[in-house]
């Protein structure tokens, strides 16, 4: 019973935190949906830790907690991979921006030089 209180309370805090982030528009919608989904699953499992025992036994896993641990690790690996992918994409995008900034700066310099020449003559 103590365990259920611990996991249930943690899950509630987690879900509340996500909700607050979404409410303050700190998370993009795609991430918000993902994390609310995760939060709801965590809350369900927190309140009923034994709910997955039958599924676990069917898969040949000793109990539900082990199964949750396994899927949890897999999920975190996927999230890390996704973040690496996002970081690479963002780096590509900032690279393009840096190039554009450099070209714009060059064009501006040339323009101001031309106006200076015109005003001088």
């Amino acid at each position, binding site marked *: 019973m103590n365990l259920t209180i611990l996991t249930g309370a943690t899950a509630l805090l987690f879900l509340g935190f996500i909700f607050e982030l979404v409410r303050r528009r700190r998370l993009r919608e795609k991430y918000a949906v993902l994390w609310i989904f995760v939060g709801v699953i965590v809350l369900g499992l927190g309140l009923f830790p034994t709910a997955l025992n039958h599924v676990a036994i069917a898969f040949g896993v000793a109990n539900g907690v082990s199964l949750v641990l396994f899927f949890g690790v897999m999920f975190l690996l996927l999230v890390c991979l996704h973040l690496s992918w996002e970081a690479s994409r963002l780096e590509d995008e900032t690279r393009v921006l840096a190039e554009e900034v450099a070209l714009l700066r*060059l064009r501006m310099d040339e323009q101001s030089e031309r106006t200076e020449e015109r005003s001088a003559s």
Partner: protein
Amino acid sequence: MTDTLHAAEPDTAAPDTAAEAATGEAARRTQRVLIIVPAWNEAASIGGVIAEIEGALPFVDVLVVDDGSTDDTAAVARSAGAVAVRLPYNLGVGGAMRLGYKYARDHGYDIAIQVDADGQHDPAYVPKLIDALSGSALVIGARFAGEGDYRVRGPRRWAMTMLSWVLSRLARTKLTDTTSGFRACNRELIALFADWYPVEYLGDTVETLVRALRLGYRVSQIPVAMRQRQLGTPSHSPAKAMLYLGRAFLTLFLALVRR
């Protein structure tokens, strides 16, 4: 500026003007040529390099891509008569070159030639590179091809041998120096490289070759003698050489499997 040519035979190193006049002169007058010089904190050497290029090649334009330098590379380049474009932060040679190719594409250049800012590439070979472009889309100015006496040993050499072997098969012609940064390409490849140019170390040389060959462009090389760097020394530690070999394998592998 040191002027010590590392060539075994300085006579053949300097372009033969009589032969040049017959082949390349006409093409050079009609084609617009841009020399792209990627530079990162090269204020000490960039002025001499630009002066040498403009002295030897009056028909070209010079673009210096200042890759987020903290010294006054761009200002020195500008006062030496080049166009200098400044990146807001350091992107690496690949990033600088893509910007150079973008500039070449936007300004309608027919030929873009990469020359390093440290003075190891002799602009006297540029007319030869341009002439060779009549038969291929990309021409590499290559060491180890008979001219000059540049030597490397150990893992670094194995890496270069491995790269040369694989890329020579792909290109169906002998390529002895695939990591050379002294290279010229035509209008079609300028358009390709303006949008796509790898940033990773070695990717800017090896992966671009693989991509160009995959797309059916011809790649060839001409022998050049490279000079000692004017400033700074290449690293010679064994650990770094092994790392280089590993990266060469990885880069080549990724270049071959990537779409």
